């Protein structure tokens, strides 16, 4: 415990900065998590740049232009990652497709959290029949393997970028709801919640000011770990032809493109596959690190 009297002049913003600094200090101890973090930051900027480039054509490169004279070419100085069966440059495709994989992953996770977190809080806080109804529905959703459920939803809604996002999000809702419900149950029984109830606070205030901030850690950790599986699910669905539709250069769809040429031109599947591995690994490493860094028991 610090007895530093320098606190007295600190504003709340400065205190927030101090907390963020402390958080990174703890995260920094976990080298693997930091690697994951930096990889993701770099990939994020590449993805944003790739999206803008695909839109405005700054670099004058194309991920969809076919060149049948240069089909199935291996990596070379001209095509760093080689070309696919239509002569499209795989490097450019990965570059322009990055924002789709990452974007859909983030969007799906965000959607899942947006639905799952309130459901979990409602179930945990109010209990009784509300809890029973919400959690039984979640149990039903959990009974199906995530990818199967997503497959099912996509086949109802039809394959498109938005539908695949919704499908992956729905399959993740139960996870969020369950984790949040558990944390809410623990937090709700703490004495400071009783204290605030004894003061006559309304449920809304208790939930948003006292419960939500205290269950953020498990939500953040679950989010970062789920991002990895969201990326995998999306790639998987696209690989099956149910997700993002060609010619959009989604990584899973690219794997599928290269499937028939596995023996002649392995690089077509290798490079998108490698990128998926890198992204998933980075998310997982970061998620593990976050779990440790946000664990209040390790504080101080």
């Amino acid at each position, binding site marked *: *415990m*610090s007895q530093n009297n320098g606190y007295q002049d600190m504003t709340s913003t400065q205190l927030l900065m101090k907390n963020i600094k402390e958080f990174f200090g703890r995260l920094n101890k976990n080298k693997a998590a930091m690697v994951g973090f930096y990889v993701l930051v770099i990939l994020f900027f590449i993805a944003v740049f790739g999206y803008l480039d695909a839109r405005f054509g700054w670099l004058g490169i194309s991920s969809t232009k076919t060149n049948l004279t240069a089909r199935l070419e291996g990596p070379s100085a001209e095509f760093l990652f080689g070309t696919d069966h239509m002569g499209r440059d795989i490097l450019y495709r990965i570059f322009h497709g990055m924002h789709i994989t990452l974007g859909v992953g983030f969007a799906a996770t965000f959607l899942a959290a947006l639905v799952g977190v309130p459901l979990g809080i409602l179930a945990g806080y109010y209990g009784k029949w509300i809890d029973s109804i919400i959690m039984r529905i979640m149990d039903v959703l959990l009974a199906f393997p995530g990818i199967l459920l997503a497959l099912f939803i996509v086949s109802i809604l039809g394959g498109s970028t938005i539908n695949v996002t919704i499908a992956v999000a729905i399959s993740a809702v139960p996870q969020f709801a369950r984790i949040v419900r558990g944390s809410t149950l623990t937090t709700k029984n703490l*004495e400071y919640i009783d204290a*605030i109830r004894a*003061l*006559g606070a309304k449920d809304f205030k208790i939930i948003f000011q006292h419960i939500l901030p205290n269950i953020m850690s498990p939500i953040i950790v679950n989010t970062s770990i789920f991002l990895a599986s969201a990326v995998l699910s999306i790639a998987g669905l696209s690989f099956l032809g149910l997700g993002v539709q060609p010619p959009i250069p989604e990584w899973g769809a690219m794997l599928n493109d290269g499937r028939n040429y596995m023996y002649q031109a392995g690089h077509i599947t290798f490079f998108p596959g490698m990128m998926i591995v890198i992204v998933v690994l980075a998310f997982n490493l970061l998620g593990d690190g976050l779990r440790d860094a946000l664990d209040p028991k390790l504080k101080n």
Partner: protein
Amino acid sequence: MKTSEDILREEENEEILRVEGLKQYFPIKGGFFGRTVNHVKAVDDITFTVNKGETVSIVGESGCGKSTTGRSILRLEEPTEGKVFFEGKDILAQSKKEMRDMRDDLQIIFQDPYASLNPRMTVKATLMEAMEITGAVPKREREQRVIDLLETVGLQRHQMHRYPHEFSGGQRQRIGIARALSVNPKLIICDEAVSALDVSIQAQVLNLLKKLQREMGLTYLFIAHDLGVVRHISDRIIVMYLGKIVEYGDTKSIFENPQHPYTKALLSAIPVADPRNKSDRIFLRGDIPSPIDPPTGCRFHTRCPFATDLCKTDTPVLENKDPESNAKHEVACHYALDIQSGKHEANYEMRDVRKNIDDESLEALEGQEEERY
């Protein structure tokens, strides 16, 4: 003997809290459809009053329903039955909105100083919020009030920007007290407020509570299991056992003249700082029975050395057994007076049972057990 001072005090004292027939049963859900299969009778029909400006303590073993009583009064749990009058108004009959208006008069201090403060809020935010919720202090005075409160409970004003984890247990308990005080309450329920603290810190916090009581005219309902603490702070004592009040009276009277066998056992458990004092420690046998299916008759009969068949069938009434004494002292025991006068004797040796176990053979002990049942 009733002194003139006592009479004066009694006349001055007006009732601030009256609990009538309070029952708190918690349902036990079971079976496939979540039916209520049974109830935990945490508090079973208790009645008592608290006068303005005094400290009333509730003591008893863990699980006897003392904390639940406090929580029920504040409606942190909705009681099953009964009435709780605060300044003449039935708290339990108030609507949620009316209740909200009454909340600033009734506050609570909790046992665990580590769980009773939101770890994500600074001290200032915690106190400001309390005042904001109840609207007890006008907006522009709140900032100054936070500073005043911190000084009142013995913290520095610059500490208001700190988070709970930067304080020690005793300091946190002071923050908890400051929060309770921030809304100008009339009655504070101290739910094991010092149990989690070191003995030296306990004394500090108790003295603080006493000082505040003198200065602000507060009334305390003090829930504790430590009789030493209770003796130090309370005017009257309620002894609870398994959801019922077994004895109720002035502190002095309870300590000097305990009438219920359970109270006697409790008092004998207070440690005495004298190694030669091999004491008259009374050892109770067995564990506290389950509040789901409490014993019939007197609930203490399963562990009471004085129990007879009457105790197994008839529930004793809480009443004043000693008409000659002027002190307010009620006890729920069929044999309170007879035990006192030596007319009714214990069925077995209860003092220093441990020694007996050493001396006698185990068989003898078993024989004794059989005799009892």
